[in-house]
């Protein structure tokens, strides 16, 4: 177990800069999720941490050791790959024990460690098979077994669940969480799935274009996104963006949009500078409820999407589309006018030009 610091790491391929000055500090036993759309540089960053690719600048420090010039085999890390990367010519037993074999651990210890890991992952009965004879979920478990048997300083996961079907993915997600709780090893986990990020991470780094957009606890990322990209990337259905003008009224600030005026609370000091200017309000769909109490928005119902536990209603509010998550019993009629009460404490304001949170 160890801490991880990434200090000013850069990477360019030719003239293309894929990572720009990345700084991350992760505490011992932490679970860092690198989250972002494809091409954001998250996998490259993971490869640099693993030593599979060299950085163009900056430092990687695992524990107290600067590992810039350390080969992957000597970094004492373990990695689970998207394709699992099980050695097809070897049995599951040898696959799991391969790291120990390479480190010249004696066969008896190796055997008992492999058995322990297999037991923890409930794959004892598969030890003598070849990877080709396993299902996707089983391969995933073997890949994790290969990682945990080494007891490394650092676990690296590269989109480990994206090749599984939806049901297995949820199961294995829980399994990873349980393993982390039990082993307490420091983890870096790459994914494009925001649910995985929210459920697993103790820290989430949202990346785009080789830059970290926000690095924070999952709840902070969800409730106080640093900019419109993060706000839009996290949450499903995505956050509503409502353009309006910030005005001063009754001693507080109000967002006026058409006829509606939403009083705002919990704003940062800087908000005052935006009075009289256009801003974008970010409103999560679940903070809109049918009813006329408090601040309200009124629009016409455009689409109704029942999902089972909830119903999503898409409304046209003064020319802008807003999604509201309402109870499963609520089935408004198309074209009808609908009034929603807004939980104004949960509103985030963004600068429409920079996209940054106000």
């Amino acid at each position, binding site marked *: 177990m160890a801490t991880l610091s990434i200090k000013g790491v850069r990477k360019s391929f030719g003239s293309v800069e894929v990572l720009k000055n990345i700084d991350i500090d992760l505490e011992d036993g932490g679970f860092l999720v690198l989250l972002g759309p494809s091409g954001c540089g998250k996998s490259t960053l993971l490869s640099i941490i693993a030593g599979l690719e060299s950085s163009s600048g900056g430092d990687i420090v695992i524990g107290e050791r600067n590992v810039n010039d350390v080969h992957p*085999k000597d970094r004492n890390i373990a990695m689970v790959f998207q394709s699992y990367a099980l050695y097809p010519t070897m049995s599951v037993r040898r696959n799991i024990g391969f790291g120990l074999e390479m480190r010249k651990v004696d066969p008896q210890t190796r055997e008992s460690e492999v058995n322990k890991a297999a037991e923890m992952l409930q794959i004892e009965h598969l030890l003598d098979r070849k990877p080709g004879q396993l299902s996707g979920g089983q391969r995933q478990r073997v890949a994790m077994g290969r990682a945990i048997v080494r007891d490394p300083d650092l676990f690296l996961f590269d989109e480990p669940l994206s090749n599984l079907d939806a049901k297995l993915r949820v199961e294995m997600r829980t399994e990873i969480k349980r393993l982390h709780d039990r082993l307490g090893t420091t983890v870096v986990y790459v994914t494009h799935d925001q649910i995985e990020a929210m459920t697993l991470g103790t820290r989430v780094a949202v990346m785009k274009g080789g830059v970290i957009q926000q690095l924070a606890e999952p709840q902070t990322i969800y409730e106080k996104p640093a900019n419109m990209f993060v706000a839009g990337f996290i949450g499903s259905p995505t956050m509503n963006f409502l353009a309006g003008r910030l005005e001063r009224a009754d001693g507080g600030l109000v967002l006026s949009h058409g006829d509606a005026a939403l009083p705002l609370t919990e704003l940062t000091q800087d908000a005052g500078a935006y009075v009289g200017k256009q801003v974008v309000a970010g409103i999560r769909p679940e903070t809109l409820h049918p009813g006329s109490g408090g601040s309200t928005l009124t629009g016409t119902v455009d689409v109704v999407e029942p999902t089972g536990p909830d119903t999503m209603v898409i409304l046209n509010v003064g020319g802008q589309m807003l999604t509201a998550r309402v109870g499963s019993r609520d089935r408004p009629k198309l074209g009808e006018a609908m009034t929603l009460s807004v939980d104004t404490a949960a509103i985030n304001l963004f600068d429409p030009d920079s996209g940054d949170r106000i």
Partner: protein
Amino acid sequence: MAQTRSGSKLLWDVISYAVLVLLALVCVFPIIWTFLTSIKVEEDIVTREMVYFPTRFTFDWYVRLWSQSGYPVLVMNSLMVTSLTVLICLLTGTIASYAFSRFHFPGRTQLMLGYLVVRMFPAVLMIIPLFIVMRQVGLLDSTHGLAIAYTSFLLPLFVWMLKGFFDAAPKELESAARIDGSTRLGAMFRIVIPIARNGLVATCVFVAIAAWNEYLFALMLTTSQGSRTWPVGLQLMVGEFQLPWGMLAAGGMISILPVIVLFAIVQRVMVAGITAGAVKG
């Protein structure tokens, strides 16, 4: 509508079978005819009335070829040249092919194209200088020299074909092995080469067949019985001794037997390899 559709499919199926059977017959008939000739008695070969289904058989041609001509020596020489060629390709080509498959480095594309352009050089353009150089270094008229000369056109082929098989082994496997404590060298020998084993065998067989069959380089670069390979020897026997058809046929059958056996064993992987290399090239 459904009637005519299945009807037209059936028609095409029948045509396909007819075409394939006809082509297969055309392809195999010369081999069968040569084989028949090689086991016919002389009177059934040179005859006024063509004997299609011989009733008398003899292995005399094979016995005579094997005991009275220098054929066993020729075959041994060919075996020697073939194994040496395969060995050189294996030792130098495997790692080169691996490098092309695994790494992107400046000049990679140009180098790979270069390996291909080599094929465009006319055989004669290389044979003459090779003849002069080999004579200078004393490798003319030796199996070693011939094997080295063969690598000039077989090594590029070997590298290209094998690259296809290496490409099929995921790169993540090596990353995993390197993280597990292996060096790149270890990952190559422990992980990648075992996975590409079938392809490696097929590529070797392909090169072996080509070396075994080669005629032109051998004709120019060997001059004595001591290093001559079977294609040259057989051709010379035809010219010098008015070799009887039966013996020539027997020589042909002996020589293509290993080719047919090897091809039959590895044809599926080999075909995949040849085409994979070609599709990407």
